[in-house]
Structure formats: C-alpha cells, structure tokens
C-alpha cells in the first residue's frame, strides 16, 4: 500500500510542484495519473522510489516513510519497484538482452538466473526474438516494451510508469496500455501517468487528476 499524506514539494527558488497531496493506493490497484504538463505527475511518481523527497508531508510504502529513508537504503527500495521513468533510458552500448538484465546485475543475481529471468521478461513483452539487437534498431514502441521488460524483470509488486505512451502512435500506445493492464490483472500495483487516460478505460482504473500540483479529481 502506498500512502501520500499531505505531500508537498517546493523546489529551491520557490516553485511549488506539489501541495497537500493526500491519497492511498491499495495493493493490486491500477491508478492512472493524469493532468496537464507541469501538473506535478512526474514529481509525485518520483517520490515513490525516493528520487524526489517531499518538502512537507510523508510518502509511505507499506508503512515505511520513504521520504526519510537513509541514502544507503534507497537502492534496495528501488530494486523492489518496477520503474519506467523518463530518465530510465535504454543504454545504446548494450543489446536488448543486457539492457533488460541490468537490474538483475545490480541485484547480484547469478548469470544463469539473470539469463532465465531476462528471457522470460522479454517473452512477456513479445520481444524474445530481439535479444541481441541494439535498442537503436527498434521502433519507439519496441523500445518502450524493452523498458517495460527491464522494469518487470525483478518481479516487482509495484510498477510505476511515467508517460510510457508519450511519443507513440495510437496503435503502439494501446499495446503498451494492454501490457500494463495484464500486469495489473496478475496482481501488480500499477501507477501510470498519461495525457490520455482513455487508453486504460477498459481496465476500469482509478483516475487521479492533478492540476497545478494539487489533487483536482479522484474517481474510480
């Protein structure tokens, strides 16, 4: 369970990105976060893996205040999450397989186990036949699917995706949205920010809309 308790974020210089955000995301929920550019979606998502820390309020994951975690504990928190952030670019000097296996390398898994899991993750997103290709040889939609495979390879219970369908044409965007729906159906908590909440309409998600850093609307 993820709890935001009166979360605020004010950057140096006085820009207030978030103010008084309070909401709870339960296990295995599919939450679609929407709002205009600069509404605070990315900042809010980044607070879950402690990439950003609140300047007021608390962010709790299963009761643990991640905003006050010591720096040494943050990597271990991130390993439990599946992250598809705008910064989670694919590495062009690694092939698809090694990109997906990177979180497993970081977690210190054996080569054999890493290979098994990375293949399974790529099969899950339909790219098992593209293992040895460079990410630059893939289309935008395929690259996004590789990023998703990398996010799920550690079998996370929470999947966070920041604008995963941005810059994709509608067909690719629907494919990606379907993938998230399938993960959620398998019991994974999915929090995804998007400009187009309609992509997830069929999955009956919980919609959370932000406007100017504040919670504007919340609907199931």
């Amino acid at each position, binding site marked *: 369970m993820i709890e935001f308790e009166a979360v605020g974020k004010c950057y140096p210089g006085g820009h207030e990105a978030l103010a008084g955000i309070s909401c709870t995301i339960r296990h295995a929920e599919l939450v679609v976060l929407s709002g205009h550019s600069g509404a605070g979606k990315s900042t809010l998502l980044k607070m879950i*893996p402690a*990439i950003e820390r609140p300047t007021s309020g608390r962010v709790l994951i299963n009761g643990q205040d991640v905003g006050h975690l010591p720096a*040494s504990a943050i*990597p*271990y*928190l*991130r*390993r439990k999450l599946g*992250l598809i*952030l705008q*910064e*989670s*670019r694919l*590495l062009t*000097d690694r092939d698809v397989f090694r990109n997906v296996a*990177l*979180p497993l*390398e*970081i*977690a*210190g898994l*054996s080569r054999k186990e890493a290979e098994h899991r990375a293949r399974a993750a790529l099969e899950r997103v339909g790219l098992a036949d593209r293992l040895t290709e460079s990410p630059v040889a893939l289309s935008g939609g395929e690259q996004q699917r590789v990023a998703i495979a*990398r996010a799920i390879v550690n079998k996370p219970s929470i999947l966070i995706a920041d604008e995963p369908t941005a810059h994709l044409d509608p067909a690719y965007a629907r494919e990606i949205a379907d993938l998230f729906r399938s993960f959620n159906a398998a019991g994974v908590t999915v929090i995804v920010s998007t400009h187009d909440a309609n992509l997830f309409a069929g999955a009956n998600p919980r919609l959370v809309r932000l406007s100017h850093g504040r919670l504007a609307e919340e609907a199931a």
Partner: protein
Amino acid sequence: MKAWFAAHWRALGLALGNLAAQPLGSLLSSLVIGLALALPATGLALFDSLASLASGVSGRPEMTLFLKDDTSAEERAKLERTLRNDASLSALRFVSRDEARTDLARNGLADVLDTLPANPLPDAFILTLRAPDLAAFEAVQARYAHHARVEHAQVDTLWVQRLTALIDFGRLVMYLLAGVLGSALVIITFNTIRLQIMTRREEIEVSRVLGATTPFIRRPFYWLGGLQGLGGGLFAWGIAALSLELLAPAVERIAQTYGTVFSLGRLAPEAVGLLLGFAALLGLAGSALALRRHL
C-alpha cells in the same frame, strides 16, 4: 563474501572490457605512466647496485699503519701495546706481510706477485676507530704517521662512507622524483576516470534509478584506475629492465678500466612487486579522487 567477490569479478570484467574497447587510448595512458615511473625505478635499481658494491667493503672506515721493513718483532710488539692502550681505537688487527701476500694472490694478483723476486708487502696494523669521523681519523693519523716504526698511515675506507652518503642522497632524490611523478600520474588517472564517468553518465543515472548502490557504480572505475596504474607499472618494469640490460655492459667496461669488477643488478622481485603495487595504488588514488569529485 561470495557476493562481494562476484561483484568485484563483474567490476573487473567491466573494467577490462572498457580497456579493451579503447585499446590504443588505454595503451598510451599506461605507457605514459610507465615512462614516468621508469626513471625513478631505473635510478633506484642503479643505486641499489652501487649500495651492494659499497656493502661488499667494510662499511666501518679503517686506517692501516704500514710498518717499516726493518721493524723488529720487539718494536712491533711495543707499537701494538701503544695502540691497544689508545682509547680512540675500538679494534686492532695485525696483518703480516705473508698474510697480505696471500690475500693479494687470492684476489687475482698471484701472477704479478710471482714475477717479483721477494714479497714487497710490509707488515701492517689495521685500526678501527670508535668515532669514525674525519676529525678522529686526522687525529689518529697525526699521532701515528710520524712514529719511528710507521712507514705510512693510510685511511682505507672513508670513501665507502662518502659513497654510502651519496647513494643515500641519490635514493632520496629518486624517492622525491617518484613522489612528484607519482602525483602527475594520479592526475593522469584522475582525468581518465573523469572522462569515463562523463562518457558513462547515462548508464550511471539509469543504474541509480534501477537500484544500484554507490559501491556498485564506483567499483568498475576503481578497477579501471588500478588496472591502468598496473599497466603503467608493467611498462615501467619493462623499460627499467631494458635500460639496465643496455647499461650493464658499458658500466662493466668502465669498472674494468678502474681494475674493479662491478655489474649492474637486475630489479629484485620485491622491487618489481613494490613498483607494480605503487603504480596500481597511484591508479586507485586517481580513481578515488575522480569518483569523489565527479560521482
């Protein structure tokens, strides 16, 4: 512990891969380090050889009193009593002319001695002084040089002290040089690692987001700096060994012209170990500084 070794094994693999990806750049960086370290390494090896030459001779300066040919046994005994009562002497040894001849013959001059009609060498007392400084030698020399039964008073091994002092000075200069050049090498490695960090900035950022710890990110860079330093150490060893090999015949020829036998020693295994360790340590230090500053 197994995980720790596995993490280092992975980091070593990444560092080697990094070096292999830029073979020319890596080679040139190591070569620059090697060239800089070769100078002090060769110098220290040279001074070590000289030191072994000096230590082959009695390190404590001595004075020899050569007696006149017509000195009787009684006069010799009287002089010996005088010397034994001299508080400035710590040891006294009598070398008869026959013993002196045997020593010379043993040192390769038997043929020369055989051509002489009689043993030309005199009896002698070898004196060791309590305070082996120049003033003490001058005082003892003044006291016995004009003794009725002394033909000549000669200070034997003061040059060894001077040579030892010079060697110590030379070694100090080489250590200072190694320190100065070592600092330059730390800067070279610092710059190499800084560039590597900049090149791999994206990978570092992505790895952080995916849960990489700081040691996980830093380890390959430590290995890279250490390996580059070690490579430099290997080059330095090669250059120093080659230089000593090339210098050795020339030095031997010079020594022969002075009637002495002297050969340049090779780098001892412990010196090689020290050189490689020092070079690797410099690489690590450069990495550590770059990582502290840029990561």
